[in-house]
């Protein structure tokens, strides 16, 4: 039989099938030779490389998603930390106020500052308590640092405080060491004036100024401020004394309204 005859046989599908089966079986018998191992190794390297590229894409996508999640979590945590700090500070303030309230013999109502007046400076505060809570006009308003002001106007749910810094605010005051009485008022720019202290009275910077008790509104001994500057002129009858309020009006958040009336007022 000639070669052409063999080749023409391969045109028949069955012959092709048998040839391929034969070749496959032969490959299975002798397939593990070095040449095939080399080809196989090369092919595997290519497939592995494609796998790596693909895994790289997947990894990048995963990392990006993870990054977004972490950013959101980070933001949440920062917000939570900020809230916790706020709560911590609030807790500290309230503890101080509770301590102050327990130590004092007067009856206090805790109030939160919810606003301030439209005027410049800190002349008035709005409190979240009103006549429904027992608040009335001309009640003293304090915090653990000292005198804040007095109630100027009241509504059922809110009240307005006139602070020490209002230029129209005046209170009878006493120097702690000499016990001499003057009056504090005319405040502004976080500084107050202690008036009507005669020039012959020795006053030192750092001396405490307290409420005198000669008032229908303020109980005696409430801290008003500390002497910072004395301008003494022998030609004048009175000294010019500047005092720094003991209350930091920039950071007031909670205050107490003094509910206990003064004896003479109670008598009325």
């Amino acid at each position, binding site marked *: 039989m000639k070669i052409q005859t063999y080749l023409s046989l391969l045109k028949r*599908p069955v012959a092709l*099938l048998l040839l*391929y*089966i034969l070749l496959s079986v*032969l*490959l*299975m018998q002798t397939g593990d030779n070095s040449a095939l191992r080399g*080809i196989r190794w090369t092919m595997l390297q290519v497939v592995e490389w494609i*796998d790596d590229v*693909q895994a790289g894409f997947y990894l990048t996508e995963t990392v990006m998603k993870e990054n977004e999640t972490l950013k959101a979590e980070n933001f949440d945590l920062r917000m939570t930390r900020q809230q916790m700090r706020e709560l911590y500070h609030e807790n500290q303030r309230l503890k101080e106020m509770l301590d102050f309230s327990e130590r004092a013999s007067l009856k206090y109502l805790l109030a939160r500052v919810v606003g301030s007046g439209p005027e410049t400076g800190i002349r008035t505060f709005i409190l979240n308590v009103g006549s429904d809570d027992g608040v009335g006009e001309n009640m003293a308003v304090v915090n653990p640092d000292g005198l804040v002001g007095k109630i100027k106007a009241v509504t059922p749910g809110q009240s307005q405080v006139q602070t020490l810094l209002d230029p129209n605010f005046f209170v009878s005051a006493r120097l702690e060491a000499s016990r001499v009485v003057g009056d504090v008022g005319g405040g502004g720019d976080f500084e107050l004036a202690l008036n009507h202290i005669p020039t012959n009275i020795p006053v030192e910077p750092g001396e405490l100024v307290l409420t005198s008790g000669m008032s229908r509104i303020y109980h005696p001994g409430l801290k008003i401020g500390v002497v910072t500057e004395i301008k003494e002129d022998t030609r004048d009858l009175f000294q010019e004394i500047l005092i720094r309020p003991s209350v930091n009006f920039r950071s007031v958040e909670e205050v107490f309204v003094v509910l206990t009336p003064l004896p003479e007022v109670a008598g009325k």
Partner: protein
Amino acid sequence: MNKEYGWFVVIFIAVLFIQSTVVDFLISAWKPDLVLITLVIFAARYGRGPGATAGFLVGIISDVMSGPGTLIGLGALAKTITGYFAGSWARIAQEPSQFIFILFFSGLVHDVLYFSISTLGIEIEWWVLLQWHMFGSLLFTTIVGLLVYLLVGRRVVEKE
């Protein structure tokens, strides 16, 4: 005709790479056999002889691209017979249901041959193998094959 074969060579190479990379990567347990689907479409168009030839060549390349434990020639043998088998039914593969029938039984022939030879001398639970591996993958292959057939395969299989 030669140009058509050229296109099929490109398609087979692409499918082989997709099979060994994307499919293996995306699906872990049961995998659709894209090479088998392409082979059946090819055989359904050109018949037994070209089907067997394509099966043999694709099988060898698959064997080479498989891991070191794979017996070279085994995939070639299974795919040769599968290509021939699918090509024998070429005349009736004109409707989706007929194509699915051919694809399913071609896949069954391929898997039975492949697993029978590769597990020679090993005691295995055939029922477990059929149930958990062969039928799962075969079902997957059949569903994907139907989609491929409806999208492009029908135009390829139909004779001008």
